[in-house]
């Protein structure tokens, strides 16, 4: 079963359209939604969560239409954790306890200890990293089966980012748990994701298993003349320098005589976006 099924999702704004986006997140997997700022990642996530109404398209979670009750099984972290600023840990626990049917107070307070969040201080005094940890603690304290995270590591220092990635790794030890995570910090997603979806300018450029992408695409260093001889569909993106041309290509579509080097998801993303511009 798919944890998330998005079909032909479209949302038009003045100057930007999220265009006919379709993707599936299989249950038990982690999908990274990668794109530049303004590419449409947050719009997609906001439509998934019903914060933004789509113009057209269909969204299913765990194979069913979205409902309020279903949100008991979904943990959400938005780029800004929307807790009222004067609230303390005790206030937050009280509200969540009366909101989620499966709220686990002990788990929540365990996370508070683990994250060393101050019990008596107001939320507004928390640093950005602390606020994000609070958002993650809430998302993980009601036995969620699906996490939807919008830029959870944005603006955080590398130590906190690594800690968050580690927590997400722990969450996916249960095979029924799934995560959809958006970020423009591709290196974070590369560490944990099974699937990668590239969004550029409101369009889905690709959605594929990460390992397959790393297997399928590679770097070559060549000359302009040799590049011209290659099948155009094999070339994902190029970068010229004074020594020749650096290109990311589809390994299956080039002659085996080429000396290839592995590519990272970040490099693949950057080359694809530059080529699309």
């Amino acid at each position, binding site marked *: 079963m798919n944890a998330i099924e998005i079909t032909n999702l479209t949302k038009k704004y003045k100057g930007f359209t999220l265009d006919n986006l379709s993707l599936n997140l299989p249950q038990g997997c982690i999908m990274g939604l990668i794109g530049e700022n303004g590419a449409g990642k947050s719009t997609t996530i906001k439509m998934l969560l019903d914060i933004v109404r789509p113009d057209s398209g269909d969204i299913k979670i765990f194979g069913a239409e979205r409902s309020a009750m279903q949100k008991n099984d979904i943990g959400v972290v*938005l780029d800004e954790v929307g807790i009222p600023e004067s*609230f303390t840990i005790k206030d937050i626990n*009280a509200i969540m306890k009366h*909101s989620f049917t499966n709220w686990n107070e002990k788990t929540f307070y365990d996370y508070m200890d683990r994250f060393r969040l101050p019990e008596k201080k107001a939320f507004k005094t928390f640093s950005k990293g602390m606020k994000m940890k609070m958002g993650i603690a809430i998302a993980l304290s009601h036995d969620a089966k699906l996490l939807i995270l919008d830029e959870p590591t944005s603006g955080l220092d590398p130590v906190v980012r690594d800690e968050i990635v580690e927590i997400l790794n722990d969450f996916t030890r249960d095979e029924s748990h799934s995560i959809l995570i958006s970020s423009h910090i591709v290196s974070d997603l590369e560490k944990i994701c099974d699937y990668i979806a590239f969004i550029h300018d409101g369009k889905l450029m690709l959605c594929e298993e990460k390992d397959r992408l790393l297997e399928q695409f590679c770097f070559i260093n060549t000359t302009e003349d040799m590049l011209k001889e290659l099948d155009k569909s094999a070339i994902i993106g190029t970068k010229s320098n004074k020594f020749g041309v650096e290109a990311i290509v589809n390994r299956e579509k080039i002659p085996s005589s080429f000396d290839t080097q592995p590519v990272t998801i970040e490099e693949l993303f950057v080359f694809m976006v530059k080529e699309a511009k």
Partner: protein
Amino acid sequence: MKGLLLKELIMLKKGSVILIIFFILFGINGLAGNATMFFLFPLFTDLLLYGHINYDEQSKWQQYSIALPYGRKTIVSSKYVAMAVGAVVSTAIVVLSYGVSVAIGKAEFSLKSLVGYVILSLAIGIVYPTFFLPLAYKFNSEKGRTIMLFLNGASGAIAVFLLTAIDGTGIVAKLSNYTNILPYIAIAAVIVLFALSWFISVKIYEKRDL
């Protein structure tokens, strides 16, 4: 809805110092002989609860609450319930203040006055959100604030008119006469308008992007 109502209560509690100070000021002024000051209790409670809507938008709670197990209808309904409870509680404080006035000899007890206090206090507490909540849900906080300023002025003028009339002239005198059918029609009309306002707000909120 329990969690949403609890959130309103906690926020009200956080602002309770201001609430208590104003209630004491209104109360002292009222007990000193200016009984119309009691009617600022429901108006002030409304203002505080309305402030929560702007606060929700600024703190991104408006978006975050959608991620909790609540539908949009429940989120809107919780504001209406909070407003209605606020109107009832502030009316109880108005009645209590009237009782204190009677006890210390600043007013004479009459059932007619008591009914008048209850009807006017409830009306102020309920009518105000009836008109501004749909507007608050329709527009963003910037536009909402402008409309809010206009509504504050308008409602202030209406309140002054009503409070001036409480002394025994005009329609308010008839409204406070419990042997007359008018107070009961007025209460029914206020409830119907409040329900209609809730329906419109739900429809607006269900369609808009947050």
